[in-house]
């Protein structure tokens, strides 16, 4: 049975079993990942996946069941189990009726050649290795990740929707004599050229001919690469979820729509309609039409991300970002500025270009107090010129300070996603003034 028919049948089954409302979301697909390190393919992983998520409501009580099975009888059993439990629960403080379906598939999100590429994942991995070596690296590591899936949604308000999606995500870490480089790429389309370009950029950073220099901790102007800006923009995007705000996981609890959180140079958009970005979809999990909207526009908070439930609780309208319980961004886009990277470097009297980061953690997510560790090339800049490579430092600051310090945004955006940028993000280089850096004191 195809996923749309099955999801529709399970909605009917849930209503037959006495639930007031139901929605069934099925994601079925294939995924292949070649992982490489030390210039060899370390493992090829392949998944044949099928996941059915079932939203059930009765008398304002909410139950969500998820199973990794395509068998109708397993779904029926999950619905029966929910029926046994749901009446013993209290009402959900978030309950709101499922909305009228307004969404429709976007179409054009699938690359028909993606499954063929899956059989060539190892070859693409070796292509990345060879390109890195040809461009001056001594070794390379990374991942080629290819996926193809169907998303089917049926709701008790009559939605019967299907979207076909594919993606290629690639990232490469290249090793050079003094430092390492890293780059990432994400698209709905497979592209051998994009793999080579990713490896080439990583290798160029790895091959920088600069001496190691030591600098003291303190405030520095920082050019954040699309990987670093992408990680921090993802943090901002996810914390825009209205549920995160309600649960105390977000600085947007203090910075409400209409209030200024950043500099005029920074605009962050949730964009589910860009056909090149892998997170795109025409409908959310409640079958509401998705839409492009700014989360932050010229430094001012414009909207939180809502589903029908968080919107009802907070007196807002859904923004088409369901998650039945937790709203989320689809793709994040930082509006480009007009600066070239060379112009940003020239603007820095004493600062750093930060190529990559990881391990972003909060002392207080409610205030946005965080630190994150730099990795790969960290380039010291003095009077507008590269002066040396600095060993790992840590950015320790707050999200509002970070957003307020954005002075220049690059004109060229990059589509990135990797381990530390889980949401596909289109983002240029950014110059942030006066970012706080620390390092071990002993």
């Amino acid at each position, binding site marked *: 049975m195809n996923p749309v028919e099955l999801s529709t049948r399970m909605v009917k089954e849930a209503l037959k079993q006495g639930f007031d409302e139901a929605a069934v979301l099925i994601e079925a697909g294939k995924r292949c*990942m070649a*992982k490489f*390190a*030390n210039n060899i*393919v*370390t*493992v*090829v*992983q*392949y*998944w*044949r*996946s*099928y996941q059915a998520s079932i939203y059930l409501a009765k008398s304002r*009580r*909410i139950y*969500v*069941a*998820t199973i*990794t*099975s395509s068998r109708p009888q*397993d779904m029926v059993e*999950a619905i029966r189990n*929910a029926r046994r*439990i749901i009446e*013993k*629960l*209290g009402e*959900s*403080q*978030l309950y709101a009726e499922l909305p009228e379906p307004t969404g429709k598939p976007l179409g054009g999100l699938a690359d028909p050649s993606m499954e063929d590429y899956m*059989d*060539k994942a*190892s*070859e693409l991995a070796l292509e990345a290795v060879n390109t890195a070596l040809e461009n001056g690296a001594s*070794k390379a*590591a990374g*991942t080629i990740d290819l996926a193809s899936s169907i998303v089917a949604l049926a709701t008790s308000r009559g939605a019967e929707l299907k979207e076909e999606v594919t993606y290629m995500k690639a*990232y490469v*870490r290249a090793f050079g004599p003094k430092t390492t480089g890293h780059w990432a790429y994400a698209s709905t389309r497979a592209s051998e050229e994009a793999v080579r370009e990713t490896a080439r950029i990583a290798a160029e950073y790895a091959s920088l001919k600069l001496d190691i220099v030591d600098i003291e901790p303190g405030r520095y102007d920082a050019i954040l690469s699309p990987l670093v800006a992408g990680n921090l923009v993802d943090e901002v995007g996810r914390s825009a979820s209205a549920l995160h705000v309600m*649960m*105390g996981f977000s600085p947007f609890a203090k910075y409400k729509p209409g209030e200024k959180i950043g500099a005029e140079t920074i605009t962050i958009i949730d964009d589910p309609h860009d056909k090149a970005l892998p997170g795109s979809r025409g409908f959310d999990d409640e079958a509401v039409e998705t839409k492009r909207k700014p989360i932050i526009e010229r430094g001012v908070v414009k909207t939180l991300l809502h589903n029908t439930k968080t919107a009802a609780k907070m007196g807002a309208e859904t923004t088409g970002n369901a998650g039945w*319980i937790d709203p989320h961004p689809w793709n994040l886009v930082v509006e480009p500025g007009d600066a070239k990277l060379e112009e940003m470097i020239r603007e820095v009297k004493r600062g750093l270009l930060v190529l990559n980061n990881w*391990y972003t*953690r*909060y*002392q*207080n*997510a409610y*205030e946005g107090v965080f*630190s994150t*560790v730099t990795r790969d090339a960290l380039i010291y800049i003095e009077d507008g010129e590269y002066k040396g490579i600095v060993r*790992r430092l*840590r950015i*320790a*600051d707050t999200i509002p300070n970070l957003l307020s310090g954005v002075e220049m945004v690059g004109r060229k955006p990059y589509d990135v996603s990797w381990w530390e940028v889980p949401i596909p993000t289109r983002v240029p280089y950014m110059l942030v003034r006066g970012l706080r850096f*620390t390092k*071990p*004191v*002993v």
Partner: protein
Amino acid sequence: MDVDLLGFIVDYAGKRGASYAEARLHVIDYLEVTSRNGELIGIGSWRSSGIGIRLIYNGVLVFAAGEASSREEARSLVEEAIAKAKAGAGFRHGLSEERLGRARYELKPVKPLEDVSIEEKTSLHREAWESLVGRLREAKPAAFAVEYMEAHEYKAIVTSDGAFIESSIPRVSLFANITLASPQKGSIQRFIELGASGGYEAVESWRLSERVAEEAGEMEEVLMKGVEPPKEPVRVVLGSEVVGLIVHESCGHPMEADRIWGREAAQAGESFVKPDMIGRYVIGNEQATVIDDPTIPGSFGYYLFDDEGVPARPRYLYLRGVLNEPLHTRWSAYIFNTHSNAAARAMDYTSEPIPRMANTYLAPGDMSLEELFEEARDGVYIKNYMEWNIDDIRWGQRYVGLAAYRIRNGELAEPIRNPAIEFTTKWFYSNIAAKSKKVEFYAGLCGKGEPMQGVPVWFGGPHVLLNPLKLGVAPK
């Protein structure tokens, strides 16, 4: 799905030319109850169920996963895996030879989770909220979220070289976020994570309401009365929770053999440890012994055989200040020409087994906590933490304290707000001045791998007195 299918898969893969085959039926049933400010948000169940297959074919290592409830489906999954393996890369993977287990084991809970009503599992959320509100005097709760999770994990593993392991382990965990705010003083936030293998008896032993009240009281004191940390270097007493995290991050992770080899270079990173440092390099003083032990009864990271069928045992990662024994799977042991120490763990059926920690702790000392404070005389006590991170070779790290106090004349004095400690791995293990005799454990989900695998672990240790250290402070 049945266990017989695993034997069929392994045999079929062998007939198709695989030099090694492993099939794992892996089923996890989760139940999750979430609330905000004592009121229910909803309940979720999740059944993750399928087969993970690992093959070595023409020297290529391939992992494949999916539903496979019939021989036909299983056969096609093997064929699709082999199709991916054919695009080889020149390197020939292998696995170390081991004495493999043939065993069944089951952790029987004192209080089975299915015998406890859903009403009881939801009532602890409301009780914890009432306890929080009842404890606060000046600050207000800005947010309070609780997540209760239970999981039954069933695994059956068959390998082409003779392993057969069947296991069944229930687990429970609780997560709570307490955020307090004051118009004058700002806000303070604490995440509490509790986890164990076993039944509801573990949940009852945690006494969530009392714990929330106690921690909220400490938080309120720090928020309302906390002062800046001292500027001069001071002796620091670290609580077991901080010590446990430090040894997890700066001993457990850098001693994962796949990281040492470089397999995670583009993800979690490499390690400051290089192969020729094992057994030789001095990382710290005599006090620096760190053990990882999957066999601790009731632990969150409990298992008796790993996911390659190797019997589990304690691993002495650092031994009296020397890098001693990395965490090995059969894959890494083959490369290092040694033996596995049963560190192979896979999060679920979609995950390949890779070297992981289980329950990692610093060996205890012989002092009481009071004696540690007396020894510190004039210093700082950092009981627990919120923010932390460590670099990708596991050398430079930072922990920011939450409940923290000045020590004056050997006794706890005024609270301190957001003290940050930032040091290298070698500095920490070389500057352990004294340790308390009591080891306490804390729970976490440790993340690693691509795709990311979160596996349950405990980390712990005694309280530790460190030599003088200059403190930083988190930004405002």
